[in-house]
């Protein structure tokens, strides 16, 4: 194993992580909900009318984040080298897997 020092960015990673933690704290301490992304998205499929609004709002916030970011600054480099076929396969596995495993990175890691 060789450490890749040229791309090592502990500062922005730690800061970004803390921002994610703050988002989790806001949702937990004000709304009483867990910021586990797969759980929030997956719960939409239960089609329970009284439980849909906040889920849609949270997902909308996530999707809007890069748009809001661009109001102030340029987006950092985003590089995807995986082809569409593999991406679709990966998405499918992630979708089924996170629901069976009841969580993805956010829920199992932070919460």
């Amino acid at each position, binding site marked *: 194993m060789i450490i890749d020092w040229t*791309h090592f960015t502990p500062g922005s990673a730690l800061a970004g992580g803390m921002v994610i933690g703050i988002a989790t704290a806001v949702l937990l*301490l004000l709304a009483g909900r867990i910021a586990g*992304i797969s759980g929030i*998205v997956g719960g939409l499929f239960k089609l329970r009318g009284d439980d849909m609004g906040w889920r849609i709002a949270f997902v909308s916030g*996530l999707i809007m984040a890069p748009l809001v970011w661009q109001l102030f600054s340029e987006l950092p480099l985003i590089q995807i080298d995986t082809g569409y076929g593999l991406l679709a396969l990966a998405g*499918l*596995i992630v979708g089924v897997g996170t629901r*069976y*495993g009841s969580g993805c990175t956010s829920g199992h890691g932070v919460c």
Partner: protein
Amino acid sequence: MSIIVIALISGLIFGIGLILSEMANPAKVLSFLDMTGSWDPSLAFVMLGAISIGVIAFNLARRRGQTYLGTSINLPTSRVIDRRLVFGSLAFGIGWGIAGICPGPGLVLVGTGSLHGIVFVVAMLIGMGIFELLERYRANHSTSNK
């Protein structure tokens, strides 16, 4: 403040954190997950940062028993590690390893207008839909047997 507004703000902050930490850059995620080549350990610091704040929030939540707005808190109660958790997580890890995209960053990528991100998220939603259908089938099947 309604739960809808809080959820929108929380999602927005969450997404900003994903962009700032570069979790929303699949190439960066893959160079973190691939420890055999030249390993970029940065993303371990994302988890460190998030957990440091998360621990405080969860302790506060547990001690208070309700939110600052006086509403109830839904904490996960399951401590069981069963086959579903193990195999589900295993599948998730494989999918994450292929694309370098997990659910949160996938949604952020959709917001950047990335077609790659859209393909991933649509497939992910189909996967979650399949799970829901299987669960419903299983529930119906087990009740009709009794």
